[in-house]
């Protein structure tokens, strides 16, 4: 890592969060890309998406107490910053507008999912 790089560097294929595990933080990609994958019913891995620099992942753990819904691993080398649930929630309590960007991202992902469901229904 260069002297001024913040966060932690993950190597290609390294798992950052694992489906089914409990989570107490979310992540913000500082550099590089990660892929989000999920185990399908037939045991085949399904790729849900790729996230790039500046994007969040693992944010559902901030708001619910469920386990991680997907596995996220590094695509090539990726540098990722961990955001603690406690720190984030304390700050959101003081300043709810901190969550605007997160809500905006989650809204965009729901919209994309809706479009994907519609596309699958049209194809099927």
């Amino acid at each position, binding site marked *: *890592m*260069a*002297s*001024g*790089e*913040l*966060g*932690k560097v993950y190597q290609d294929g390294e798992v950052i969060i694992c489906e089914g595990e409990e989570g107490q933080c979310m992540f*913000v990609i*500082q550099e590089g890309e990660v892929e989000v994958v999920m185990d399908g019913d037939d045991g085949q891995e399904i790729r849900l998406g790729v996230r790039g*620099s*500046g994007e969040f992942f693992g944010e559902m753990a901030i708001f619910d107490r469920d386990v991680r819904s997907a596995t996220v691993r590094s695509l090539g080398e990726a540098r990722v*910053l*961990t*955001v*603690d649930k406690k*720190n*984030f929630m304390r*700050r959101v309590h*003081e*300043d709810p*507008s*901190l969550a*605007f*960007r*997160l809500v905006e991202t989650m809204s965009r992902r729901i919209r994309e999912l809706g479009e994907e469901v519609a596309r699958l229904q049209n194809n099927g």
Partner: protein
Amino acid sequence: MAEDGLHLDDGSRVGVIGGGPAGSFFSIFLLDLAYRMGMDIQVDIYEPRDYTRPGPIGCNMCGGIISESLVQNLAAEGINLPPTIVQRGIDSYMLHMDVGSVRIETPLQEKRIGAVYRGPGPRDLKEVKWGSFDGYLQNLAIEKGANVINQRVDELLWEDRLPQIKIRKEEPQPYDLVTIAVGVNSASRKLFNNLNFEFTAPKTTKTFIQEYYLGEEQIQEILGSSMHVFLLDLPRLEFAAIIPKGDYVSVCLLGEDIDKELISNFMNAPEVKGVFPPGWDFDAKSCNCSPRINISGNSRPFDDRIVFIGDSGVTRLYKDGIGAAYRTAKSAATTAVLQGISAEDFEEHYWPACRKINTDNMIGQAMFLVTRIIQGQQIARRAVLRMTADEQKEADSTKRMSMVLWDMFTGSAPYKEIFVRTLSPVFLARLAGDLAISVTGR
């Protein structure tokens, strides 16, 4: 101009005096929120400093630590600090006392503290490898639509109940809202003598910062990514730290009436000499300064159409001044856009954020008093060292003392939260045990 009432609207004009972190954060959040609300607001930032020039002309004089909590909050805001601005990511602290030293690792073994220069670097900077932190934030404000006026403000006037900003050889410019974001070391403080309400300037104390050139390779070898903090039994010394940057290290001293004698005593302490290369010439400094920092806040940092943020409003005691600039700037910006710009609006929606910092500072004062007692008692120093060292050896233990020290040194958590943790029966029992061992000399 907003024509009716004390609120911002489409076409409103906001003047920001001071383009350091507080002024830039305020402008970024105000413009972002206005955009979300479908409002077009003009923001002018008045800042005479040139953040591309090394030395005092581009420097806002501070230790340059971006705390762990601030790095995370900024990332959540979409402000990710790049390695072209952060000179060194910090992942651990070395605590030095006369009874020994101990390394305190970050809880996640991740670099989440940033060491930066507010300008590009010290006066004798040979090569500009990293950008200025203040300049980076100012550029983000410009990207959001702020206009930077690279001039010193001559006068702050009132005309037809509107604040006006005057710079040399120009007509005064009227604004719907003026935000004061100047530092406590700024000459602009004299502007507030003509305000139509009683302005109580924050109380300050003098600090000392000295820069040394060691080169990136040597810093990596001897200091690595650790900040070094010192709890030494030196009269009038509250706290001291050596912060590794890119090619330089910053030595920061905090205490009462810091003078040449105190600086010399600190530099000659064996614990300090041990951090530098053998035979290091402590007179070979790159530059130094004695900036003032707040020890109490502005008692009423607002009125109709005017709000004080950052150091000119309320800031955290000794630590995380940039974090306090972020919090006060965000609170003032959301109040101005979503609530209004009257004294009542700021009192109801902005003042609670300031009061929370003020209350926490009072607890902080008590915590630093305890730190002073530990500094003065060798038995207490031994107990703290032993407890911390034992925790750092145990992989899965709850690192109570380590986390108390970590948060005290990094400014990552409110003082109240740290204080509550020290009241834990397990913490107190373990400290009592280590104190007993120190007394018996085992």
